[in-house]
């Protein structure tokens, strides 16, 4: 079963530059394991050692945030579209500004 996965620019070094890759899995966790078998290192960038989604990564299944659908246990179906994005939603300028102002936190740096 094929699930389309959109990869953010910052992680395309793991997919040979591909913007969209295909994978399979009953759950998001399974899908990431499947992707990692062909794109080694990708999963470790998205999931912490403790087995949770990285705090600053947002993953959407058909445009809905998986954290409200069971996170790594979120169920997937054939034809689903998965989007991975860095956490800058709601106004990157504002968020970056907020990060800088919060003090002690680091802001994402342009490369």
């Amino acid at each position: 079963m094929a699930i389309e996965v959109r990869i953010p620019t910052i992680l395309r070094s793991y997919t040979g530059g591909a913007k969209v890759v295909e994978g399979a899995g009953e759950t998001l966790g399974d899908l990431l394991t499947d992707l990692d078998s062909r794109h080694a290192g990708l999963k470790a960038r998205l999931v912490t050692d403790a087995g949770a989604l990285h705090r600053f990564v947002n993953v959407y299944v058909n445009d809905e945030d998986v954290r409200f659908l069971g996170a790594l246990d979120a169920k997937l179906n054939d034809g689903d579209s998965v989007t991975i994005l860095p956490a800058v939603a709601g106004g990157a300028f504002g968020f970056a500004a907020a990060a800088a102002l919060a003090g002690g936190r680091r802001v994402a740096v342009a490369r």
Partner: protein
Amino acid sequence: MARYDSLLDACGGTPLVGLPRLSPTVPEGAPPVRLWAKLEDRNPTGSIKDRAALFMVRAAEESGRLRPGDTILEPTSGNTGISLAMVAKLRGYRLVCVMPENVSTERVQLLRMYGAEIIFSPAAGGSNQAVATAKQISAEHPDWVMLYQYGNDANARAHYETTGPELLHDLPTITHFVAGLGTTGTLMGTGRYLREKVDGIQVVAAEPRYGELVYGLRNIDEGYVPELYDATVLNRRFSVGTRDAVLRTRQLVEVEGIFAGFSTGAILHAALAVAHEAVREGRRADVAFVVCDGGWKYLSTGAYGGTLADAEDALEGQLWA
């Protein structure tokens, strides 16, 4: 509700209007599913941010942090800057906004008109450069006051004390509240209030998914989540792409005559998703969503006309919400 002592007193109390043409049709005998728009563009400067700006300034005055004649510094190119500029003018403060030099001309003109001073940072450095500049200025002027809307409780409290009660008063049968996720103040404040008062209320977030140029610069190890954000207030969170946001923004004006900015289109997209879901499941639904601002400030993008693909191109790389 027609007479006020001053413009600041006219903040809030916005109309909630039904959308009979955009609400999904339900099968015969099925319970009704209705969409309602909270017209926040009817606030003094034309956006929902007036509520937060007013509450944040009042809270800073009450705590003694802000004294007559003080200077407020805010790195913002958006509605918060415009709202703060108006409140600062009427309450006797100076406002300095830091923003990238490539923001739209309407924004610069509006801010200047309301009396704000603007410090531009180089466009090439984007948001990060604006932030760096603001930090530098802040360090040079420790007496200037940064209200910091992303972590300021008064931002969420504005919605807990005004937006939430207004919605419940006007729509006691509310089942869903849908709003945009930026500082998260609207959703946290209104969401908490409605959760306390309405059994089974669904609090739904719509966040903009920008073009790749915006995310291309971001590193996933160093992201940011506003201090105000508490995921337990939300039931669902949708990510809405540029094309869907533009499509819904156009639909809103074409079908219901409401001329709104693109962030409202993103919110409407999520509101329609939950409304159609309710129809499929045969449940009654009164879905209230926020119209954040009017479309005037975004006309120069050209995204209200032409094909959707053209509009998407026009907004690529822009922070449209």
